[in-house]
């Protein structure tokens, strides 16, 4: 079991990185590639999952198509940008040699270990993790009530547009793990890593020196650990419920959207590759949580307004609005089917 978990963790990171190569340029860091790749995988799965749910295919069909497209995307990214891989990796390995990074690693390791030796129950799992388990055990997608196992009389509108449990089930089936193990043991490691990559990227916008970025990572880690004012705080959620879609939304995808705009927001126009990345981030936000459909649109809307006020760039505004179309479409579908 431990070996399977390690293999799954490493594989997810590698595939995420290779998929992220599709959006990489010369100065793209390893962290960017991994984070963007991960979010893009989630975004792609939103489309595949919705189609499969609409046509009531088996879960195996969804899994097979998703796996194929994921690996195809990884292969394409590798073939297209393989010269970037080695420099990316070398730069990433060579640059972390100060006490703050070491301190951050200790804290990160501690947070990950808490989830290996301990657990925190959350009532939402009674649906979301159960939905993933149901998908594997019945080979269906949202055809049976996760709570009781009875067949649904109609599509559960509230959940079906953000089928994140299908990703949990996908990972489980891909590596021979039960979804509950994926959720409670594997995802805390992956999500914590992705969350701090997002922080690292944000720090990189303001600081060029490695020591400064490491200090941001370390302080962010301490702030998250001690942010349990209520369980609703983002930092507290990251510690308490890292496997949940809402946590991935709040700690990974939304920060990536912010980082994206901080990186590309001053451009006159987004290239297709950049626009596609933003589009995938928005799809990814919709995939992980129904909150993501609205929150990602609100966040992007506020960011677009910010850059419009600062730069008066209508093209970028329109390009950004186009990325909000999935959220708009999903909102309309939700109103129609609920």
């Amino acid at each position, binding site marked *: 079991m431990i070996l399977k978990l390690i293999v799954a963790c490493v594989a997810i990171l590698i595939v995420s990185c290779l998929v992220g190569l599709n959006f990489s340029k010369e100065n793209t860091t390893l962290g960017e590639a991994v984070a963007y790749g991960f979010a893009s995988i989630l975004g792609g799965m939103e489309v595949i999952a919705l189609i499969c749910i609409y046509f009531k295919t088996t879960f195996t069909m969804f899994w097979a198509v998703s796996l194929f497209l994921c690996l195809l995307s990884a292969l394409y990214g590798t073939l297209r940008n393989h010269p970037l891989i080695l420099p990316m990796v070398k730069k990433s390995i060579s640059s972390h040699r100060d*006490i703050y990074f070491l301190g951050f690693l200790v804290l990160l390791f501690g947070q990950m270990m*808490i989830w290996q030796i*301990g657990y*925190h129950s959350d*009532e939402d799992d*009674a*649906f979301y*993790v*159960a939905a993933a*388990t149901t998908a*594997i*055990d*019945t080979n269906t997608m949202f055809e049976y009530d996760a*709570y*009781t*196992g*009875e067949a649904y009389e109609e599509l559960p509108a509230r959940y079906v547009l953000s089928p994140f449990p299908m990703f949990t089930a996908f990972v489980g089936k891909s590596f021979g793990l*039960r*979804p*509950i*193990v994926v*959720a*409670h*043991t594997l995802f805390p490691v992956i999500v914590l890593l992705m969350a701090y990559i997002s922080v690292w990227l944000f*720090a990189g*916008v*303001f*600081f060029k*020196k490695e020591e400064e970025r490491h*200090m*941001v990572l370390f*302080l962010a880690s*301490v*702030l*998250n650990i*001690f*942010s*349990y*004012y*209520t369980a*609703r*705080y*983002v*930092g507290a959620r990251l*510690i*308490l419920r890292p496997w949940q879609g*809402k946590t991935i*939304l709040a700690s990974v995808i939304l*920060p990536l959207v*912010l980082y994206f705009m901080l990186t590309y927001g001053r451009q006159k126009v987004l290239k297709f590759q950049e626009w596609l990345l933003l589009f995938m981030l928005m799809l990814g936000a919709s995939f992980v949580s129904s909150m993501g459909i*609205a*929150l990602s649109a*609100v*966040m992007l809307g*506020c960011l677009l*307004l*910010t*850059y419009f*006020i*600062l730069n008066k760039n209508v093209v970028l505004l329109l390009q950004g609005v186009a990325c909000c179309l999935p959220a708009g479409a999903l909102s309309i579908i939700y109103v129609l089917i609920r």
Partner: protein
Amino acid sequence: MKEIVTNIIKSIDKYFEGNYLPVVVFVVSLLAMFWLMKKKKESKEVVLYSIILTVVILCPITAKIIMFGIGKSVYWRMFWLYPAVPVVAVILTHMIQKIANKYARFAVVCLCCIVIALCGNSAIARDEFSRATNFEKVPEYVVAVCDMINEDAKEQGIENKKLATCADFLMYVRQYDGTLQMENSRENIRGYDDREYANLVFRCICGSEPVDYDAFAWLLREEKCSYVVLNLEFQEEMSDALLDRGFTPVGYYDKFIVYRDGLLNAKENIEKNETVVKFSKEKSGYLIGQYSSLTGDQASFYTITDAQNHLILIDGGWDGDAEYVRKVIEYFGGKVDAWIITHPHFDHVRAFNKLLASADCPQIDAIYASEFDYDTYKEEAKKWDHFEDFENFIAVTKDRDNLYYLHEGDEIDLFGLKVDVYHDYTSKDGGDAANDGSLVFEISGNEQSMLFCADTGEAQSETIIENYGEKLSADYLQLGHHGNGGLNEKFYRMVSPKVAFFDAPEWLMNPEQGTNYTTPENIALMEELGAKIYSFDSAPNFVVLK
């Protein structure tokens, strides 16, 4: 408009719960970012974004639109859009980096961590985490009980694994195993389940409603709950009640007990038996069936049926077996032509008593019993004889004109079967009050016979041998007292059966070391005699008497 503003304020209260220190810190950090890092365009962008976001959150018009999309109760999630932690970390880093000396910087970082720790709260320190005992990160009892149910369902051939459980399991079962259906779920706790019966089951099982256990058992069956899991710490009475109503214990883990509906597959288990299938095709001789007890305890219940669908029952078991007996009667045509009660002990007569006392008692044409003298038995009965079972037997049969007593030496014909009685209460010679007053009788077809010894003990062995020794040989034998004790070796050697029936569950067939059960010795004897052994482990068991 007023409602929207109220909802906004409620959301702020809900998110911060009165502690606005993080807000203050974030606002100060933003201001510091704007002032101290103004050369960086990104700083202005982050600050402006935060301002625009704040306007969007607080403006009633935008708030109304967003609340329509995400719901009023979770509007507080808008605060997730602020990059609070990264901004605070960035501004702290910016200020600390102004310190030239690296050791001083390190000291200030440590100081910041101490201040953050003192001003904040840690989920880890607030007992939010429990020690995990498995990779699934669920309580161990969930894993144990779910695995127990799966194993039992596989053994029993049960496809519909539907559970009614106490609250301890509601959150976890379907996370662990999607093949287990649940009668109740978190939706019942939250009041979102609109299924009437499911809510009733939930209220009964969680103790929020007084329970009529007969109705509860009916409800469980109506809802097709094949398994019930109870917490014995506060559901012991319910556990006993289910045991009395045909639910059979599957196993225990920690304080939890798992029951299976013993009536599940009752008919299917008979139908699919090879001997039954063969008998239904050949329609020759008499089909004799031995059945286990749903209580998991020793008991005695047999059926004898023929090609003309006559049905003879022998004993019935505990009161918890009554509904099972009813199912078996239904399977064999719904009418009992003759019911033989060997003696009035709890594990033989209570199912009979319960059925006869019920409003929908099946039709019974004749009842045969050992004639226990009321006063004599009352005088010699011990506490473990539960005299009240005999009194109940008297009560349920007193108004019937079809009760016949069998005595030693009697010979009757039941639908072509010759019944010879070798022993009864009136021919008892000392020994145990009720057990040694059991009917011992042999049923004979054209070619074969079966000897029933009920609970007769060793004390009666010599008397029966002396009087009926030459007749004792039989093809099939029901051992005395469930195979534990019973008649002596000489007696059993004279019977020398081809098939030996032990009315005993696994714990009696293979008793733990240190117990005084003699079942293993009788098993060894039967094996030495070359008899095939049947017990509750493989029940229902069938043979054809030619």
